């Protein structure tokens, strides 16, 4: 579905990372992890096509229309109601949805009572739920998550995680940048660990656990 082959990226002349290779398959949840400044978000932007890598190959077999992104920025227009926000993105993505469908989605994320309220009055958690509704509405084949849980209460996080699981079960590939590694590990199938400007580990979750233990012993 999506393949990265020895992707290397520079900002100006400064190396961000080199030789990242990655294979994304439908229904698989891949976690991108690593310390701050390791280039996780940059890698995500390369995967989503926002930036072109300096070298290496990104092979996409997916149109933009089948991709959805949920990050810490919510893409919510504060001047529009929750309903209008979703209507707008539905049109941008050419999804034919009537208002009942959208209300259904809002109910799913617990915002039905606020459908006609301006999103500008929403709290961070509510905006992120609205954003989640946008992503669910698109029914993507590839779901990109860039620390979507930041600043959310535990209920919202629980909701988020259950919806991610649903998406993966429905056959969508998920790529996930996360800081809360321990918490999210049980949801994932593959892990890519970035460290020292390169791919320090890439493999199954199980292998990752033992790799980490081995690393701890070394130190």
């Amino acid at each position, binding site marked *: 579905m999506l393949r990265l082959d020895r992707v290397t990226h520079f*900002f*100006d*002349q*400064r190396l961000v990372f080199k030789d990242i290779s990655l294979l994304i398959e439908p229904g698989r949840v891949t976690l991108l992890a690593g310390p701050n*400044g390791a280039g996780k978000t940059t890698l995500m932007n390369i995967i989503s096509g926002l930036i072109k890598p300096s070298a290496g190959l990104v092979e996409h077999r997916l149109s933009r229309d089948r991709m959805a992104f949920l990050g810490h920025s919510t893409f919510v227009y504060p001047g529009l109601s929750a309903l209008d926000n979703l209507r707008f993105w539905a049109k941008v993505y050419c999804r034919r949805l009537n208002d009942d469908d959208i209300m259904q989605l809002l109910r799913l994320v617990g915002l039905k009572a606020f459908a006609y309220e301006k999103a500008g009055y929403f709290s961070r958690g509510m905006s992120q739920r609205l954003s989640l509704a946008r992503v669910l509405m698109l029914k993507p084949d590839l779901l990109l998550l860039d620390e979507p849980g930041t600043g959310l209460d535990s209920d919202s996080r629980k909701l988020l995680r259950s919806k991610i699981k649903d998406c993966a079960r429905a056959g969508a590939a998920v790529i996930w940048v996360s800081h809360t590694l321990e918490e999210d590990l049980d949801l994932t199938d593959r892990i890519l660990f970035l460290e020292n400007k390169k791919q320090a580990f890439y493999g199954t979750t199980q292998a990752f656990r033992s790799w980490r233990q081995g690393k701890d012993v070394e130190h």
Partner: protein
Amino acid sequence: MSDNSIMVRSIPALAVMGAAGLIIAQYFIWIYAPVEATMGIMQKIFYFHLPMAWWGLICFFVVFCASLVFLISKNPFMDRLSQAAAEMGLLYSALALATGSLWARAAWNTWWTWDPRLSTTLVMWFIYAGYLALRQSIDNPQKMRAVSAVLGVVAFLNVPLVFLSARMWRSIHPAVFGSKGGGLEPEMMTTVLVCIVAWGILTSGILFYRLRQLDIKDRVKNLFIF
């Protein structure tokens, strides 16, 4: 970076040649070329004004070309070239305006006249001053480069329109300009050509020097990020 090193090595040669050229040009201006009948010695301004105006315009054209190439290739060298050329062009057009204004005072007894060439130069000066201001004020280097390249392209596309509209704004041309191109004596023509070539050599020398400076600045900046 082989082309870069050729460029760097040619700087001293260009500087020496430019200086020599300008000295020779002085001979042509003051001794070889005849004193013009009506304007007298003031006409000598022309030998400074014309090369300035020409090289200013050529520098802006370089900005245009470098910007186009940058948009296609994303080569940062092209971005530095457009910056250096814009700076030189701005300097030259400012000097051309100043000398043009002096000329206007001597020839038509006014500091400023709505002559299409003069007005076009002034508008260009404003546009490229805005261009450099824009470069200064965008922090993200990637974005700054893309944006200024786009501006570098549209700014030059605008030139013919500026010239046409400036000409139509005042449909009566000052008669002096009608005779300027054709009315040059052969000695004057030679002198102008010598001046243009001399300034051209100096311009490329300064341009290369500035390019090298910008290149080093970029490299130093990259050393200290993070």
